[in-house]
């Protein structure tokens, strides 16, 4: 298996990075390109940008953010939020993103997963699953659906998703630790990579997630100071987690 990945997540609204608690109460935390560069320099393995506005005007703003990020950042990044068609996905990938994350649109039209995978390959398709235990939610974690977490994960993998971004709505922004039980259940059920998300509050939380799955999404614990990722990496290595060698140029 490739090395465990540490993935800062940047929620973007109107071209700015914001952070909310349980998807609400947003505050501005900075410019996406500057933050992306700081995380990249600090040894982040990858980045995720989620457009939380998901409106038509927001989509145009997001494409511009993707272009600016792709021009300066030399680590892979995923972009999600408001991607409803193969054309939306193409616009984001052609602007320089490595992968798109599908969420509500995949729940409404599961065929979208295979359509994007057929055009750009499975490695370009992440399916975001926002879950409260075994219930999958859509529309930014606000709307419960009839989908169940583990069966939906199995279905998205079968339809060609290359990776699952599993967010525990209960834990998101609360800094009480990842939902390790749910993460383990999903990872055991699929043969694609699973990113644990929602709830990282300490180094120990990240260590616990990386011991059971492929990657950990982090936000709250590093957004006040992106350079803190350097120290976080050192602490993870001291706890026995193997991370990539970082070469500064």
């Amino acid at each position, binding site marked *: 298996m*490739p090395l465990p990945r540490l993935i800062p997540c940047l929620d973007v609204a109107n071209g700015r990075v914001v952070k909310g608690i349980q998807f609400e109460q947003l505050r501005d935390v900075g410019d996406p390109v500057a933050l992306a560069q700081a995380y*990249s320099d600090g040894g982040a393995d990858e980045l995720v940008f989620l457009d939380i506005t998901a409106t038509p005007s927001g989509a145009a703003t997001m494409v511009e953010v993707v272009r600016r990020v792709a021009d300066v950042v*030399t680590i892979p990044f995923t972009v999600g939020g408001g991607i409803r068609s193969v054309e939306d996905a193409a616009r984001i990938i*052609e602007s*320089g993103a490595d992968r798109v994350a599908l969420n509500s649109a995949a729940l409404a039209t599961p065929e979208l997963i295979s359509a994007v995978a057929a055009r*750009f*390959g499975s490695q370009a398709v992440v399916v975001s699953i926002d879950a409260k235990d075994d219930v999958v939610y859509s529309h930014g974690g606000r709307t419960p659906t009839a989908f169940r977490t583990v069966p939906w994960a199995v279905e998205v993998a079968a339809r060609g998703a290359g990776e699952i971004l599993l967010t525990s709505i209960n834990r998101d922004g609360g800094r009480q630790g990842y939902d390790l039980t749910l993460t383990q259940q999903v990872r055991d059920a699929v043969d*694609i990579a699973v990113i644990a998300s929602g709830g990282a509050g300490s180094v120990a939380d990240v260590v616990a997630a990386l011991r059971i799955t*492929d990657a950990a999404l982090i936000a709250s614990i590093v957004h006040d100071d992106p350079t803190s990722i350097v120290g976080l990496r050192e602490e993870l290595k001291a706890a026995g987690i193997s991370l990539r060698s970082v070469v500064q140029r």
Partner: protein
Amino acid sequence: MTTVIVVDYGAGNTRSVRAALTTLGHTSEVSADPTAISEAPFVVLPGVGAARQAMEHLNETGAADALRQRVTAAKPVLGICLGMQLALEASQEDGGVKGLGIVEGFVVRLDAPRIPRLGWADVDPWGQSFYFAHSYVAESTWSVATSEGVCAVIEKGSFLGVQFHPEKSGGAGLAFLERCLSLV
């Protein structure tokens, strides 16, 4: 400064490769024009998309012949990910696709616990981590470096192919690209 041709095969993202070249002080053009491919000091065959569509595009535009002739003439070509796999004789992808045949060997479905194989992994014997994102892999006697036991780099004459994405591998990737271009 070198003007690099990034070969266009109609499959999306060439922006990241071009951005990395810009960072290193080189200009680049995206083209499938056989003359441009023949005459450029350095050519990159990038790696996004599906093998069948890529080969159809390369054959239709004449880029395929231009790439083969370039390597015969000992001019450098760097193949990245799918761009490396296309140089081999054939691939199992898309039900079987004939490749450029520049390098002896075949492309087969990865045998790995989780596919696609996504993330950073060490390249041996280089001792540095690079970023991989692939479901297929090369099997060739021209393999010169591996990662977790699978082919990571092939080198034959003036063709260098890498399974990882140097344009997405941070400082290690930029340093690798810089070494490739310093030979021009």
